[in-house]
């Protein structure tokens, strides 16, 4: 979103030539690059090296030779189901949060009360950082088996657990995930929604568009790039989440991070030491594939921003 604002903007053919002064002198560039050395070393040591280790050992047999066995094992039985569970959960949670978050952002943007805005953005800033265990326990306390809301509903004669609901299921997990995904979505979408100009809707109406068409042909396409970007991050957030799932499912639902966790904690069958690494490699791969798919979509959706 680095495009020059159009305010009074002259025609600007997209030119790729805007390097800093330094770039023209290779010697100086090298010297300047040294300043970034510590950062790059740190990143390499504590992120790149461990990640590379996961990828390589995913293809190593216990004796150190190359093998597909780990990968094959990671794509069978419970592990395959875990992939299914993880993908389904992340997709549902991300999509639901993205849609709901956008609706909330639209509702909020249509109000011009500064206090309400401040309250909601502050609340979202706080909630977006509320993940993990406390959140899981808060939900257990409210709609768990013996949660307060559950008991209130039971007293009214409607126990959700008698009607197929369970906090400890995929749907339950998705509800909990939404708790920290929705606020993030609101924070991302609010500036985009506020940037929708009244003139666009009025111009569309003057050209013959009904309200639904205004959103369909103008509002939604304009919001699409921000929406897609956020959707991708929500998905990877949900896909990687471990703590909440661990507390709530206690192993009852297969999810890739949980399986990896239990492999690390020592429930390893003989000859499967590198199985965890294969699963980890798979997770990285999923994130990368989602990223690439997103980039392709985004190239179409955000064509007009460049």
């Amino acid at each position, binding site marked *: 979103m680095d495009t020059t604002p159009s305010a009074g903007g002259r025609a600007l053919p997209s030119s790729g030539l805007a390097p800093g002064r330094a770039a023209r002198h290779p010697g100086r560039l090298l010297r300047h690059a040294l300043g*970034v050395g510590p950062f790059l070393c740190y990143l390499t040591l504590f992120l790149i090296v461990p990640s590379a280790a996961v990828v390589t050992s995913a293809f190593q047999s216990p004796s150190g030779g190359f093998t597909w066995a780990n990968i094959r094992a990671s794509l069978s039985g419970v592990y395959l189901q875990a992939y299914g569970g993880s993908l389904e959960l992340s997709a549902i949670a991300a999509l639901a949060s993205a849609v709901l978050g956008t609706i909330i952002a639209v509702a909020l943007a249509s109000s011009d009360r500064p206090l309400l805005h401040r309250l909601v953005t502050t609340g979202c800033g706080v909630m977006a950082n509320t993940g993990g265990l406390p959140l899981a326990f808060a939900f257990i*306390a409210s709609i768990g088996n013996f949660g307060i809301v559950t008991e209130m509903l039971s007293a009214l004669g409607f126990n959700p657990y008698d009607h197929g609901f369970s906090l400890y299921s995929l749907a339950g997990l998705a509800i909990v995930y939404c708790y920290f995904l929705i606020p993030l979505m609101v924070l991302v979408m609010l500036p985009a929604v506020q940037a929708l100009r009244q003139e666009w809707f009025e111009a569309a109406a003057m050209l013959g568009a009904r309200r639904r068409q205004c959103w369909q042909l103008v509002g939604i396409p304009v919001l699409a790039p921000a929406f897609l*970007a956020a959707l991708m991050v929500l998905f990877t957030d949900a896909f990687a989440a471990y703590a909440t799932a661990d507390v709530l499912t206690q192993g009852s639902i297969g999810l890739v*991070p949980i399986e990896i966790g239990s492999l690390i904690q020592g429930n390893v069958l003989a000859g499967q030491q590198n199985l965890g690494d294969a699963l980890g490699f798979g997770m990285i791969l999923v994130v990368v594939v989602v990223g690439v798919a997103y980039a392709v979509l985004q190239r179409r959706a955000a064509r007009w921003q460049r």
Partner: protein
Amino acid sequence: MAALAGARRRQRAAAPRTAFRVGRTTRWVVLVLTGLYFLVPIVASGRYAFEGNGGAFSLASLGLVARDTALWDGVVTSLEISAGTALITLLLLVPTSIWINLRLPSWRRTMENLTLLPLVVPAVVLVLGILTSFRNLPGLLLGTPVILALEYVVLALPYTYRAIDSGVRAIDLHTLVEASRSLGAGWVQCFRLVLLPNLRGSIFAAAFLSVGFCLGEFAIANLLTFNTFPTRLYEVGTEYATEAVTVSVLGLVVTWAVLLGISALGGRGPRRRGAAGLPLLSDPAASGEARAAAVADAGTGSS
């Protein structure tokens, strides 16, 4: 004519028309439902935690918490890790960001993309990598919580880097540096007396983001079997549900208080001048906005 135009603008600014109409009822239904969804778990945990026999208010669970020494050990460890993480983050990122903006502006985009890399590797997977690659290193690294601080720096990078970089970009770096250098200040003095005071706000934000991250991180600490606040909370939860909820509520309240407090603190001081250029810090939602910024960058960065 200019005065007229000015008056027009003021009038527009005073009463902005919304870009689209959402029915008042629809709007309030949406916002109230949202509020309920976010408040119910909190209120419910509060009641769950402090309800004694017969529904009376009771602090009994607090007593249990106070006697749990392992929990307090965990809290201390977590605070130590937080301090270490915040320190390393600042030592690593503040000079790097200043350097990039001063000497290597063409690298900005690259840096933004690099700092997004941690989003690609889930924490659980990182643990696998740590166990494999640091297996043969001296026990110092894997045997103490130091490794947690070192890795938390990496995992919080997408957010902390944005917090600091937006602050560095908002000040007129070249002018400040040239002015102080021409007045005879050395690099160290220039950094300490000129740049740091101007970056106070973003340094606070980054420090807070690190601390918030450290106090909540469970996956790595648990899988590397360290006793931190979240891991002890987990153990408590498997044994005494009420106590766990109590601790959670306390934890949430403390985290939020710290969040609001630090952003209020960061809101004072010289950085106010640049408030317009620093949306990240002009609002208590600072940390959330840093996350939002990371998301937006993830959007443009990877394409």
